[in-house]
């Protein structure tokens, strides 16, 4: 598109004004609204429904045809919303039109179990297999709480946007995902569903594998072993030392070494010193710089902390 100098000047002025008024109230005219096509009767399919809902962008029902749900002759509107006879046949304008049989959001939302059953009629297998009695439906959440089936893009199925859907409820995890040491949620490189199956699972915390460690090993296969020398808390449960969503202490540690290690290890020799500011570098006010405190602390030497395959790896140094 080319613009004349006058047009460009006006554009710059308009842009500056709009930027200043960014947070101001009021509604500017919308190109999309002005150019909306008007649905014309006579087409096939769900024409009963789209007589009213066709061109209404607030309920963009036609956009469902850009999704998998708009693939073939099934499902139609009534497959999910019920026959909704009273809603369809309503003629008395003086009385409010009854809601459809199944309403998925808003004040007229139908019973959660009814709505979930509607979806599970078709989506009964796969990841939904263990949905019955699972924590989300048990808390009256429905499929539509997370999925937007009418939208062209269902945010929870987009890796870049999925966390935002989950974080709408899981506030602590949202905050932790921003911590200095985090699992790399930015940009959707690691997403909630990599580790959790929100539909239902036999594992704690809806994990995708039967245990936490097996879930972690799906990506961190180098930690899987089995090692000749196992570090008991590591083979027992990764979360003994790590918080998978985020932490102030890298890498995702629950607290800072050496004290994280010392909370278990209080044997003889060098495991019990009370390491303090005296162990800082002299330039930082210390008097006896300590290799058990600085850099990686205990891991300066005991680095094979998830287990060692070396015959002399009993102390996880090799």
């Amino acid at each position, binding site marked *: 598109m080319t613009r004349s100098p006058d047009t460009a000047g006006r554009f710059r002025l308009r842009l500056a004004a709009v930027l200043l008024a960014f947070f101001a109230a009021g509604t500017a005219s919308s*190109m999309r609204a002005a150019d909306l096509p008007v649905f014309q009767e006579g087409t096939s399919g769900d024409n009963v429904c789209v007589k009213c809902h066709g061109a209404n962008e607030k309920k963009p029902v036609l956009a469902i045809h850009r999704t998998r749900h708009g693939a073939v002759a099934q499902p139609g509107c009534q497959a999910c919303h019920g026959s909704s006879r009273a809603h369809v046949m309503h003629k008395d304008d003086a009385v409010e039109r009854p809601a459809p049989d199944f309403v998925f959001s808003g004040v007229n939302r139908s019973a959660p179990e009814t709505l979930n059953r509607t979806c599970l009629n078709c989506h009964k297998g796969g990841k939904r297999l263990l949905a019955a009695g699972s924590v989300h439906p048990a808390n009256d959440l429905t499929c539509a709480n997370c999925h937007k089936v009418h939208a062209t893009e269902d945010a929870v199925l987009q890796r870049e946007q999925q966390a935002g859907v989950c974080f709408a409820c899981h506030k602590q995890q949202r905050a932790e995902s921003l911590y200095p040491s985090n699992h790399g949620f930015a940009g959707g490189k690691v997403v909630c569903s990599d580790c959790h199956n929100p539909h239902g699972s036999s594992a704690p915390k809806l994990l995708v594998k039967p245990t936490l460690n097996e879930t972690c090993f799906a990506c961190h296969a180098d930690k899987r072993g089995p090692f000749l020398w196992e570090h008991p808390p590591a083979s027992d449960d990764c979360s003994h030392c790590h918080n998978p969503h985020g932490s102030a202490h890298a890498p995702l540690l629950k607290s800072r070494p050496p004290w994280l290690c010392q909370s278990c290890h209080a044997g003889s020799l060098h495991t019990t010193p009370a390491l303090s500011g005296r162990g800082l570098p002299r330039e930082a006010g210390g008097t006896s710089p300590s290799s058990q405190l600085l850099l990686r602390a205990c891991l300066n030497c005991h680095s094979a902390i998830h287990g060692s395959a070396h015959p002399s790896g009993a102390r996880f140094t090799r």
Partner: protein
Amino acid sequence: MSPRRASLLALLLAANGAAAQVPGEDERLAELVRPHSRVEVGAGATSNESLASGRGSGLERHYAIGAFDLRGAAWRYNNPSDDGFRWRLSGSELGLDTRALRGEYGKFNAWRISAAFEALPWRAADTYHTPYAGAGGARLSLPAGWLKGADPAALGGLAAALNRVPIERKRERGELSSVVWFDSDWEWRTTFRNEARSGTKLRGLEFGSNGGNPRSALLPEPVDSTTRVIETSLAYADEEFRAVLGWSSSFYRAADRALVWDNAYSSAPWTGGASGLPAGFALPLGQAALAPDNDAHQVSLNGAWDLSNATRMNFSAARGRMTQDVPLLPYTINAGLAATPLPRASADAQVMTTHLHARLVHRVSRTLSITGQLKFDDRDNRTPMAEYLYVGGDIQRQPLFDSATDRQRTNLPRSRSDRRAMLEADYRVMPGLNARTGWDFEETRRTFTEVARTREHTVRLDLRANRDRFSFNGGLAWLERRGSEYRYNLPYLASYSSEAFINALASASGCAILAECIRVGPLQNKFYIADRDRLRARAWAGYNEAPFSASLRLDLNRDRYPNSPYGLGESNQSVASLDAGFTPDETFSASAFVTFDRQSQASRTRQIGSVNAVSSNPLADWRVDQGNRTRTLGLNATRAALAGGRLTLSVEALWLSSRSPVTLAAGPAVNPAQNPPGALPDLLSVSTRLALEARYALSRATLLKARYQAWRQRNDDWSLEQVRAATLSNVIGTLETPLYGTTHGLGLSVVHTFR
């Protein structure tokens, strides 16, 4: 039609002839109902390549912006001849190391194949320095003419030899999967995934620890491995019964079995003593094992059965095997020290896993439902036990078996099994108000562990309420874990297998009962097997009435270890989050959140001064309190339909401040070198991110996108600050500095949308 649109249309038609345009389609209606495709091209730049923009951002000084999302589909609306074929190709961040490509092709309800590629870079450190060359390989070398010394301060030319080496790695993940629906009841899925990892990570590598004289360095360990995963499953589903029979195999393969590096130190620290070296003994190399190749296989059966309209059952069963059989490295790589043969050629490590799970949900009435659950998890470690010699970092002479040595060790194949039961009742007190109460029981049995069995009981109560614009959800849980007798020395005595050594220890300690007196802190209980009382509370309150929404969430977790005089004594976390949203119309939305997270942990330990001493002096006790206070603030706003409907502006801001104080209190008998303790500065991390984006519609199909981002990082970390190359007497310094800096980034791109 422009050549560009013509070429894109040709691409659509070539990929799927069925997606051809329907003659006579109404153009405006088609805009609503036909899938849209999108192509984005542009360029961006950042002010520097600092890690401030994120360790996994992949941003560079100058980069290309490339993304596309191409979709082809038959048009159902007003098109009864739709054959159900669909395809989609998409790519994102194509100009960066974070690029991703995805594609799928299939026929609705019949079959689908899909492929994906994704790159995940990770920049771990950009200020690391080392005198070693060869980063990324399995052999690290010191520069020619290196002068060995007894400690870093005595290493000739260390400071001059330090070179900056970026520590970074990358994962490249490719996946190919298919699904076939044979009819409405049967489904067959297969996935093949290949993940390649390359780069470096930092690892502390020790040259030895004889006589309390460890010498080590943080060196770049090579990362060069692939993990291949194959998963397939056959699923059946009808109205009442659903089941999936699955198989998965995972193969981890590393290019390198060991890392070998030049020894930077002389043998001076390790001469003399029973296991010491003769003066001047040559110690040219060090060697450490890398993560070993390993396999994991699992077969599983999961199912759900609707026994009646009121009763549903879920069940799961899985049996797995994890194996690792890499040939063992020799005790030492240095000639003249490796005199003892290994007891086995390989670990032949094997772990069998078993998982069983059943859940029954029964609706007793319209207001009451009951859920019961049983679960069994077993990790059976079948790795053969053998006696090995501990040779600290390739520098020690090897003792004779059955001599009085603490270097004769037996590997302990630890196993664990869990049994869980759960019973829960959910009762609808009145419309909009539900109460749920439950009881959980978990018994864990471990071998070669101080506590053979722990049992944990949980009672909990949850309430949830909805009324008009308000909703509330709250819960309270009390967990009590108790274990069998805490046998402090059990793993020690099982692993230190020289009888002569154990007898000598007992004699030196004057203890008649070995298990009570050898080489552990008094009553120091490990937190993950110790008796524990846990209180967990949460509350969520929400208000939602257009255009406003608000919610408040509180989480509290309090752990107490009532029978742990030493070790972790308490751990607390409380989190409060406040969210607010304002959406007056479809052209404007704004939201904000703030989160306060407060954590604290307290541990107590007794300092023990010599090898075998069991201190009974409480004046040698010390206590550490670790805290963390993190505040997070987020702001998001979008304003659309500006400039005559052409302009959309959005802003996103995130701010985080994390402060972690550590305070130590030591008794008067604690080693004077640490008593009284010097204060440690707080660990601090403050990060700010601001993103401004403008989208201007040049036409109905084309928009111009401009995105400005700024990242600011400030970190104070005493573990890195002021640590020079020779600050420490036994670890070579790395000159790493905490992340500090600001990065600005600007990207401009054009987005074209078409059908």
